[in-house]
């Protein structure tokens, strides 16, 4: 009886060891994926969309990977340390999700040539650093159609962050979308010189509404423009995230970014050892740009037009910057029958016809 007990015990210990070993082995084998965020995750906005992508990645590949995110990392020297610490603590694939992380990411990537880095919205790639960005302008064009149809004053308000090509491209695409359904449209822009400043965004929205804008959109990160539009009884079109709960009456729709698919594919490529440095610029076709559900006040024919245009952009039969496109002075910048190349899009530094004011120099 005692020996029997002993046997049982030893087998049990053996089993426990094996179980323990496999458990620890599986934890060790899992690919560690790191994310660096510029702001807290919160419940709407730029970082929130990236974190949705991370969660989807975990859902899709959760048995093979673990993810880790560091939030509120300032651009500059702090970023380099955080990225380096992630690499050093065994993260083989690191996504850095803000433009200002570009040079820090490149510096760390040089120190860790065997690890993979993906930087969002930058323009420098190396052997182990890829970049990725969404074709935000496609969503902008679609929301422009909605705004152009819904405005009564023919004046649209745009709260913008910084005069860099990405933001200017968005303003232009939005304007072209609106003008495609309403040639009399005017777009007024106020620059707040911040990606996230609810106070300034609110002031800018109020100023635009005072100047006659009855649809407000924004290329900033907070819910302030939508909240302001709701209070003042005008419409809003949100950016990054669906912000309908902040303005149930005002919020017409939102141009949102979807990263889950990209994160899953990229991580799978690292797992399969097929990852290659690339500058990915994905849009509606790849499922990276989606519109938030339409407010019921948007008429069915507008919804149908948006859906038709969405399909046309997806199958390549239509490009938001398809000629003829005129700049503010009336000069044709894209001839009929042509559309802008990616290179021209990336360096865009002029307003199209319909935008009021000048780009700050």
């Amino acid at each position, binding site marked *: 009886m005692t020996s029997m007990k002993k046997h049982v015990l030893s087998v049990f210990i053996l089993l426990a060891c094996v179980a323990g070993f496999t458990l620890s082995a599986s934890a060790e084998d899992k690919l560690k994926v790191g994310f660096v965020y510029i702001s807290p995750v919160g419940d709407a906005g730029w970082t929130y969309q990236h974190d949705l992508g991370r969660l989807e990645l975990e859902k899709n590949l959760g048995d093979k990977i673990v993810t880790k995110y560091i939030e509120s990392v300032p651009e500059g020297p702090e970023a380099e340390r955080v990225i380096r610490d992630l690499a050093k603590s065994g993260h083989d694939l690191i996504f850095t999700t803000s433009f200002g992380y570009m*040079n820090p990411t490149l510096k760390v990537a040089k120190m860790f040539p065997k690890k993979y880095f993906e930087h969002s919205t930058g323009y420098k790639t190396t052997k182990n650093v890829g970049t990725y960005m969404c074709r935000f302008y496609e969503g902008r064009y679609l929301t422009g159609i909605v705004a152009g149809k819904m405005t009564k004053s023919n004046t649209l308000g745009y709260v913008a962050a910084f005069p860099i090509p990405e933001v200017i491209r968005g303003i232009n695409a939005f304007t072209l979308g609106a003008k495609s359904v309403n040639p009399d449209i005017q777009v007024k822009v106020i620059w707040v010189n911040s990606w996230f400043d609810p106070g300034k965004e609110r002031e800018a929205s109020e100023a635009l509404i005072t100047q006659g804008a009855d649809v407000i959109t924004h290329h900033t990160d907070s819910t302030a423009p939508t909240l302001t539009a709701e209070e003042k009884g005008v419409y809003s079109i949100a950016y990054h995230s669906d912000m309908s709960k902040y303005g149930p009456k005002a919020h017409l729709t939102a141009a949102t970014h979807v990263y889950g698919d990209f994160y899953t594919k990229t991580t799978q490529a690292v797992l399969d050892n097929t990852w290659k440095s690339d500058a990915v610029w994905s849009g509606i076709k790849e499922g990276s740009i989606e519109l938030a559900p339409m407010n019921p006040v948007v008429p069915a024919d507008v919804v149908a037009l948006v859906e038709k245009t969405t399909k046309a952009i997806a199958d390549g039969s239509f490009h938001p910057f398809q000629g003829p496109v005129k700049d503010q002075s009336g000069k044709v910048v894209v001839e009929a029958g042509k559309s802008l190349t990616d290179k021209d899009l990336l360096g865009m530094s002029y307003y199209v016809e319909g935008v009021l004011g000048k780009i700050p120099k």
Partner: protein
Amino acid sequence: MLLKIEPRSEPSKTMKYMSPLIAAILMLISGLIIFTLLGKNPVEAFHAFFIEPVNDLYGIGELFIKASPLMLIGTGLAIGFRASIWNIGAEGQLAVGALFGGYIAIIFNDSNSFFILPLMILAGAAGGIVWASIPAFLKTVFNANEILVSLMLNYVAILLLALLVHGPLRDPDGYGFPQSVLFADSAILPILIEGTRFHAGVLVACAGVVIGWIFLLKSFTGFQIQVAGLAQKAASYAGFQYKKLIWIGLLSGGVTAGIAGVLEIAGPIGQLLPSVSPGYGYAAIIVAFVGRLHPGGIFLSSLLMALLYLGGESGQMNLDLPAAVTGIFQGLLLFYLLAADFLINYRIRITTPQQEAI
């Protein structure tokens, strides 16, 4: 029962120097309670927060990189604070210093001269002086409150830097993105320890602390500053020129903040960005007070403050702690310090109303 607050006739000198230590210990104890409430093993959390960031040479280098602007600015501010001159504008003075120094680096971007770095540091110091002389001028001539003026000028300086980096100082080949060219090697502070980011600027910062120490505690002007801070009237009866002390008190912060700005852009950043400081100018105020306005204490408190920043990142990475924990620790430290100082200078006496009735 009544609580009465009375000033102590003679606050204990030992306790005055002990209070930062008491505050640090109380902060740690509260931290452990917070970690436990967050469901973390307090020992592990403690390790992740305070040991993990500095358990290798790279980590120690990071600690000094983070601490060096804090100790340098803290020392400069302490000179003013000792004379009761309240310069809250170090953040802006840092930005202008970085702007001046960065401008030198950008216009000499194709030069290999050895003199570029010293020139950048001089330019940074000049930038800090220019910005700090505005509140000094307004205070001495119009008796304008230096706290408000210096604080407001922070916003002006930060926007000025952002404006120029978005415009004329922008990298012409940078697709219009708001950042300057990367500085040439001649404008980058050399790395002193291979494999870390420990750069020569850390030594400049340490030298600044030593100079501040000698100035404040060994020079006659330093003595005047201390007297003026304790009793302004006594100082003027003794013939000390209070206006001169205002200038010194504000410019000392300006010089150190301006140099700290250059050390940041010529050190770990390597270019001009629209924003070059994550709030060092404000954090240095806490550092100066936790360090008892004494350069030696400021050196130590800057290291503690830097460790809190690094620990916050490490806590996120290892334990999924929220980023806000860093701010909580800083707040706790300052709160306990103020409380300890209060209890050193005042005592709370419990009296019973019955006795008073009789």
